[in-house]
């Protein structure tokens, strides 16, 4: 009863703020569309692995062209299988297999075939890496005047559709941002309008007020996600979904609460909505950076990779990509659900303690 009163009130307030509603609609539709269509990414610290079956100097020559800052030092693998495994586990993004054939053909002036494996779940980076690879080989061709063909095997995202990735990544960044803002604002608005005291004087437990307020915004987020996935992701970009949509909603729901915990901390320390906006940006950037949305985790330093375990967005993105592109089922996703749930519980507890002090 009391919860429904709070929910109703928060929905009314939300819909009467036309500006906010428009912004949210924009972030869930047009912005996702633009991101899917547009962004170009230069590779940074892309991790490369290779198999050198030929054990030839030419191979080392080619490999030496992959250097920082675009690439990390290429890693040697003993078999194609080990390389594939590393890619599956996201340790490596691009794998090159130098077969005996390749080197032989290269030397003898025939058409040489090079096999490249890429983790296309980070399609943008993979694609640009390929262009680099082509350029490097091209330079070689000029010197030794032999044609080389690149045989690309794309893992997990056979069509390597950049827009699918970019739009999903953008959606997840936006959910993070909007989750932080919306949830922090339901509290801070009460401070700004001077209704905080009135709220405290209601004969309702603080925990119920806090929970209902968050729930109202999580539901708004869910509606936004539905609009975005339906209209843009499926509707315009025709993104395939190999796993189950239910799993995606479940992980989104868990993620919203993890974000809600952080938003509570923001709400506790901000006095104005402007402060919320500032803090959101400050907090959002590392969250996204640590999640692997922009730069694949496998190409980050071990310390940062370790830190990334504390970003709720990491599990969200990985689970989402797995649901959409790898078609992972519920059981395969359990680790993500578990981790996200844990994050939600921990962050929520911290946030709750922090804002609870104001009640």
């Amino acid at each position, binding site marked *: 009863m009391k919860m429904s009163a709070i929910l109703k009130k928060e929905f009314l307030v939300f819909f009467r703020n036309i500006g906010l509603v428009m912004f949210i609609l924009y972030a869930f539709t047009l912005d996702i569309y633009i991101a899917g269509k547009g962004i170009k990414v230069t590779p940074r610290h892309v991790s490369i692995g290779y198999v050198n079956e030929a054990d030839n100097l030419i191979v080392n020559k080619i490999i030496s062209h992959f250097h920082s800052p675009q690439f990390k030092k290429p890693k040697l693998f003993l078999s194609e299988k080990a390389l594939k495994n590393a890619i599956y586990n996201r340790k490596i993004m691009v794998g090159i297999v130098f077969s005996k054939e390749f080197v032989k053909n290269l030397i003898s002036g025939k058409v040489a075939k090079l096999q490249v494996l890429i983790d296309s779940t980070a399609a943008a980076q993979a694609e640009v890496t390929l262009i680099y690879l082509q350029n490097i080989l091209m330079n070689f061709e000029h010197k030794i005047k032999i044609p080389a063909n690149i045989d690309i095997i794309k893992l997990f995202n056979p069509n390597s559709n950049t827009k699918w990735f970019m739009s999903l990544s953008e959606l997840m960044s936006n959910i993070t941002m909007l989750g932080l803002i919306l949830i922090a604002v339901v509290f801070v608005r009460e401070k700004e309008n001077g209704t905080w005291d009135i709220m405290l004087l209601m004969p309702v*437990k603080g925990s119920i007020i806090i929970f209902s307020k968050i729930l109202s915004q999580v539901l708004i987020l869910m509606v936004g996600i539905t609009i975005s996935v339906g209209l843009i992701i499926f509707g315009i970009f025709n993104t395939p979904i190999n796993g189950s949509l239910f799993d995606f909603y479940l992980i989104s729901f868990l993620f919203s609460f993890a974000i809600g915990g952080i938003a509570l901390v923001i709400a506790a320390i901000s006095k104005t909505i402007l402060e919320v906006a500032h803090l959101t940006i400050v907090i959002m950037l590392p969250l996204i950076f640590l999640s692997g949305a922009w730069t694949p985790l496998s190409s980050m330093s071990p310390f940062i990779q370790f830190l990334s375990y504390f970003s709720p967005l990491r599990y969200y993105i990985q689970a989402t990509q797995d649901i959409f592109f790898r078609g992972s089922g519920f059981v395969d996703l359990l680790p993500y659900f578990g981790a996200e749930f844990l994050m939600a519980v921990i962050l929520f507890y911290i946030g709750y303690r922090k804002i609870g002090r104001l009640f």
Partner: protein
Amino acid sequence: MEILKVKNVSVSYGKKIAIKNASFSLKDQEILGFIGADGAGKSSLLHAIAGVVSFDGEIIYKNYTYHSPKEAEKIKNEISLMPQGLGLVLYDFLSVKEHFDFFRDLRGLKKDEEYEKRLLKMAGLYEFQDRLAGNLSGGMRQKLSLILSLLARPKLLILDEPTTGVDPISRAELWDIVNEMREEGMSAIISTAYMSEASKMDRIMLFDEGEIIASGRADELIENIKDYTYEGEIESKECFSFNKRTYCLKPLNLKKATPTLEGVFFVNALKKGKKPIIFEIPKKQIDIPNIIVEAKCLTKKFGAFIADNCINLELKKGEILGLLGANGAGKTTLIKMLLGLYPIDEGELYLLGKRIKSYEDRIELKSKIGYVSQKFALYKDLTIRENLEYFAKMHGLNMSESSKKIKEYSQMLGFEEYMDNFPKEVPLGINQRFSVAAALLHEPVVLFLDEPTSGVDTVARSAFWKLIRKLKANMGISILITTHYMSEAEYCDRVAVLKRGVKIVDDKVENLHKKYPGLDFEDIFLNIYKEKQNK
């Protein structure tokens, strides 16, 4: 010499016409007062003159004619407007001193130490220059906005209810300043809800429902109502009573009294066929202890500053206790401690016989307490009906109970026609009544009202006090109320006076009258404040 000519000015917001065809002129060095009920159109006309809203008609300032805010840009450095509302123009995170720097820069003024010091002293803010505006009391905020509008020494000063929530001592000082600046060539248009202030102006214009219905000196306006003014207060369906006078169109068997400006409102209302609201409040017995609130040496500190210093206070069952004191004396702080909105630094608090220590101690008591804050804080994105429904539900009323109660109170308190408006769209007096309704829905046994009548028009205030006393008489509710209208203190059973965080008087109103025979309560208050010089 005329400095301002207003010709057929109308202002409307959508369909609603706020002021229609207003015409008047203002002489050099003249101080003109605007009085009238809430929503009568005073603010709209003031805003049109200051060139901040668009209007129809023509305004001529000196020799410059303007028809729109854009055209008014040219003269804005000679005009200064202070809008209504508790410190709306302030930035919560700037200190008092920084506000001065900011406004000086904004207006391109040279620093005048002496003058600024005077303004600060007048507002009682001299010692608090480093305090953030957000931490000032309501009245202190009002006074800060006021002196900021005086900073530029405007040629034409436009003040929209500048003294709302300002204590009597500062009000007197404000008039000294305005008079002095008039000597230096300033003219002013000031709207006010304090009739004692309006009497001091050169000329007064009375507004009613978007029209100027009378204008003249105070004594001229009063002249018209002397036939309808009687001594004492009575309970009647056809006459208004307020502040020891009764106003009635039909002859009464009472002694005639010398009218005051306040009477103009009542007589005007009567002439338009308005009747006082009769509040039908069912009689009820409530079973509560005799002492509702007992505070023992309550203390609140903000850093090194002591806002409330060891205050002892008792509120008995069915009692109206007036909490008086200058701006910043610690009234709101004390109420917030009683409500549990501020932690108590020292002292003990008992509510309804129960020692209050923690959050948990309070939660069940919350349903027994009603509170109206100094800012009438309600949800501005919800209509009045939605606001009330929300509060009712939060207090655990079910659908049918809640709609019944809401209907009852909206009729009882006379805001039924505004139910589907947003709080911003209705006059302050209506907001005040609906805040009280929101605080009453759950039938509390004690009400805390922080300046519920500040900025509310005379007729609405008289209705409000009738309601309060009825609530007390019929429902046995105890009420703790703060006000800066000293005449309203007469309606309290007892008053406690705070000065700089210390309680200096706590006595029955009748006893104070005995102690200071022949004085009205404003003078009694000023006397008390002068006598008890703490610090």
